[in-house]
């Protein structure tokens, strides 16, 4: 017997042209991810290697993206920085999505919990992002772990609001109410009926959070509250570049900034394609 897919899978298929673009974006992103994930092992200690006879050399065939004040290769440092940002961004986005999903699920269990979660969402959304980020990162003593926690703790409210609204709407669906009337527990209804509907939202939400998380990680590090200055993070590279920009050493800021911009835009586009496809 031929298996028939549910209509909601068929009707949301993208037309050929955007689907091609989505596949192209996905392939580029996959390639980028593989490159970033493996960069740490492939590069070894190249981002830290100093060449005192080649300090602040502009881009050339020998030094592709130029070198910094200590003669370190900028391409290696940029790639390592993007790799580091990728890990921090991924972990922060995943943790943030998990917090958003847990709180949205909690909100469906009782009216009191819903009020509490809504209050928490509104409170966090009313506080400026960056200030909260700096406070949390500073309180946790800085470093990779502190940045991940700070970004995760401050980025969940908007996703939680979407997931909560979706869950509250789903909870009123006939089949959900019938399931309860058939004697199923709230927990069963949550994990069997409600959560599977939220997975596409979570996936897109996490992907949209990811570039945001990367940007905030870079901003925190740039301001000195994030990753350690000894790590080749994009924020560290940009902060270093600030000191030399007035001297005409443009490559120190342009290439790491461009790398960050491309990564953020790439993942943002991928998330938009996925949102349309799912």
């Amino acid at each position: 017997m031929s298996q028939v897919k549910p209509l909601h899978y068929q009707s949301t298929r993208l037309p050929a042209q955007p689907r091609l673009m989505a596949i192209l974006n996905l392939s580029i992103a996959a390639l980028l991810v593989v490159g970033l994930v493996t960069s740490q092992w492939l590069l070894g200690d190249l981002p830290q290697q100093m060449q005192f006879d080649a300090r602040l050399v502009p881009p050339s065939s020998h030094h592709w993206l130029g070198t910094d004040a200590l003669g370190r290769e900028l391409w290696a440092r940029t790639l390592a920085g993007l790799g580091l940002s990728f890990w921090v961004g991924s972990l922060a986005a995943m943790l943030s999505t998990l917090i958003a999903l847990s709180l949205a699920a909690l909100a469906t269990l009782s009216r009191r919990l819903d009020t509490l979660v809504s209050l928490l969402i509104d409170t966090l959304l009313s506080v400026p992002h960056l200030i909260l980020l700096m406070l949390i990162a500073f309180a946790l003593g800085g470093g990779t772990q502190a940045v991940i926690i700070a970004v995760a703790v401050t980025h969940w409210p908007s996703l939680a609001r979407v997931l909560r609204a979706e869950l509250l709407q789903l909870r009123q669906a006939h089949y959900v109410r019938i399931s309860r009337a058939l004697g199923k527990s709230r927990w069963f209804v949550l994990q069997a009926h409600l959560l599977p509907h939220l997975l596409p939202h979570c996936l897109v939400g996490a992907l949209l959070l990811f570039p945001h998380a990367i940007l905030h990680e870079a901003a925190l590090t740039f301001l000195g509250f994030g990753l350690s200055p000894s790590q080749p993070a994009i924020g560290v590279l940009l902060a270093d570049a600030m000191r030399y920009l007035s001297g005409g050493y443009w490559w120190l800021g342009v290439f790491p900034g461009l790398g960050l911009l491309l990564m953020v835009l790439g993942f943002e586009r991928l998330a938009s394609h996925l949102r349309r496809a799912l």
Partner: protein
Amino acid sequence: MLEARQLSFQFSPDMALIQSVSLSLDAGQWIGLCGDSGAGKSTLGKLLAGYLTPQAGDVTLDGEALPKNGLQPVQWLPQSPELAVNPRWRVGKILHEAWKPSEAQCQAFGVQQGWLTRFPQALSGGELQRVCVLRALAPGVRFLVADEISTMLDPITQVELWQALKQEAEKRQLGVLVISHDSALIERLCPQRYHLSEGKLKLN
């Protein structure tokens, strides 16, 4: 006995949909409810099954409030079966959510074994409605509120479905409230018939 006493319900403050309605349904009894569109028939059905909370009055089962958790002895069968099933579940999983009917029971309601591996979108409204009716007949269910359940079925299937339901209801002494626009159907099925108009129940 399922009893509604002085039920009142309104969706907005300026429009009272149900006004002081009282109704009782005994085990094994069939009651018909008809009325114009928007008269509040489905709302009354949902109030009886505990899907809506009345602003005044109460619904009791053997003198006690309807249970809040566990299998509800009063099951509501909605008009649109497509909305009554999880679109991501296969029909077998939907049917077996509360209990596992025997093959003979499936046959009596015209539910074919081949449907069980399909998604609900691959079944017609009528086929899905039969699955929903059978699902609602879990052991422990004592009353059914059948809200326009045969509207989308062809006449032969309608007869088959109501016959199967009648047999099951007689065997288990189920009380059934039949909500329909079709007064001929209600006349055939229910010895006691009500008409809902302007929020009030009138015995036909």
